[in-house]
């Protein structure tokens, strides 16, 4: 199957180094302490953050830092066929763990001992790159909740099909069986916090593909920063400052 045409166009008309259109919105869930909706092309994800609040299960309380919990679930209607079991299956558990570890590395947990931060991410529409969209949405929601973080964590995926590194794979490209590299990146500190790959790649090509994903992360970070500045200006304007 041809994923990159001889003219250099992918199945959805993008160039290999082009990311899908991103859109973010802060404050979608009014009851949550922080929330955000993040769209990457057709993938749409909503994240809600509750915390820091008192730990509900005393046995899990950590005395010198905050406990970070994360739950990833996909809505029944998010994929083409209606899903039977959206939570609790192996993929959801793994992605929940991955998002939790990524955000925990970035949150300044030592500032909130004996408390709990809950991150709930739900996929409303899945078209590849749900993991990355969830991490981006969680970053925005945590920033909206005012939880202190080291830096914004942004994430992007990249792959290698038809001997071409491709940025931001959609579902069709993802299910082609080729390599799929997901990178979580701290843009200002210039550090990689998450690196996952399916399938196999020779090491030199892997470096190119990872570098491409990092560039995608930097572009997302610039957009997220603009959205947060715009949101803050709006809030200050409404308060009359």
């Amino acid at each position, binding site marked *: 199957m041809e994923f990159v045409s001889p003219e250099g166009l992918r199945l959805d008309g993008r160039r290999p180094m082009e990311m899908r259109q991103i859109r973010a919105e802060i404050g979608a869930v009014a009851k949550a302490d922080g929330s955000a909706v993040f769209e990457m092309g057709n993938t749409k994800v909503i994240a809600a953050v509750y915390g820091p609040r008192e730990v509900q299960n005393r046995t899990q309380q950590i005395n010198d830092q905050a406990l970070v919990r994360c739950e990833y679930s996909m809505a029944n209607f998010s994929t083409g066929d209606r899903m039977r079991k959206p939570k609790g299956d192996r993929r959801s558990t793994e992605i929940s763990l991955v998002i939790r570890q990524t955000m925990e590395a970035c949150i300044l947990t030592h500032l909130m001992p004996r408390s709990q931060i809950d991150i709930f991410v739900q996929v409303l529409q899945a078209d590849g790159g749900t993991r990355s969209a969830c991490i981006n949405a969680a970053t925005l929601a945590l*920033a909206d909740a005012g939880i*202190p*973080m*080291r*830096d914004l964590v942004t994430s992007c995926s990249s792959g290698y099909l038809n001997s071409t590194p491709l940025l931001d794979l959609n579902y069709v490209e993802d299910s082609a069986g080729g390599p799929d590299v997901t990178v979580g990146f701290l843009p*200002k500190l210039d550090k990689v916090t998450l690196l996952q790959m399916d399938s196999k790649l020779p090491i030199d090509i892997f470096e190119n593909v990872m570098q491409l994903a990092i560039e995608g992360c930097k572009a997302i970070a610039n957009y997220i920063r603009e959205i947060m*500045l715009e949101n*803050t*200006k709006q809030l200050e304007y409404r308060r009359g400052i």
Partner: protein
Amino acid sequence: MEEAAAAAEAVVVTPGEVLGKASQVRAGRGAYVAPHNNLVYASLTGFRRTLSPPPNSPDQRPTVEVTGHKAHGAVPEPGSVVIARVTRVTARVASADIMCVGPKSVREKFTGSIRQQDVRATEIDKVDMHLSFRPGDIIRAVVLSLGDARAYYLSTAKNELGVVSAESTAGETMVPISWTEMQCPLTGQIEQRKVAKVGG
């Protein structure tokens, strides 16, 4: 110089942005120092503010802080004065729900406990807990420490700390008549409490 300071106040920063060098500025709330390169980064989204240092402190670096727009609920800190409602009284310990920290009310209530030795400053081993507090009393106390896993440790061992408002068995709010007694205005009954000295 003043315009530069005023202009700096209108700058909005996001987490991860560099606010200065650790050798030149101190990290306040909403900022942190990265140990590997000694730079001060922002950890919240909000307005960046620079505070001048107190004049006679040895460390003359200005403090840079970031004020976010989300107001977090108050959390008791050691040394802060809290208002609490007594929930349970035993022979050694009185438990109370902390409702206000300083002037701010809390978003979710915290549990505090007042031990027998922290009720008053004099004759601390002769304290009778049931003659000092009753369930339902509103007390003003100071937080001693974060305490154990269950509750903060509170103390009422000062003149201005103790019961500020209590209901008598008849249901009326009682009037304090001394530092150990309160009287019900309806029945005239006198009940014993560790009363706080309110006012001048």
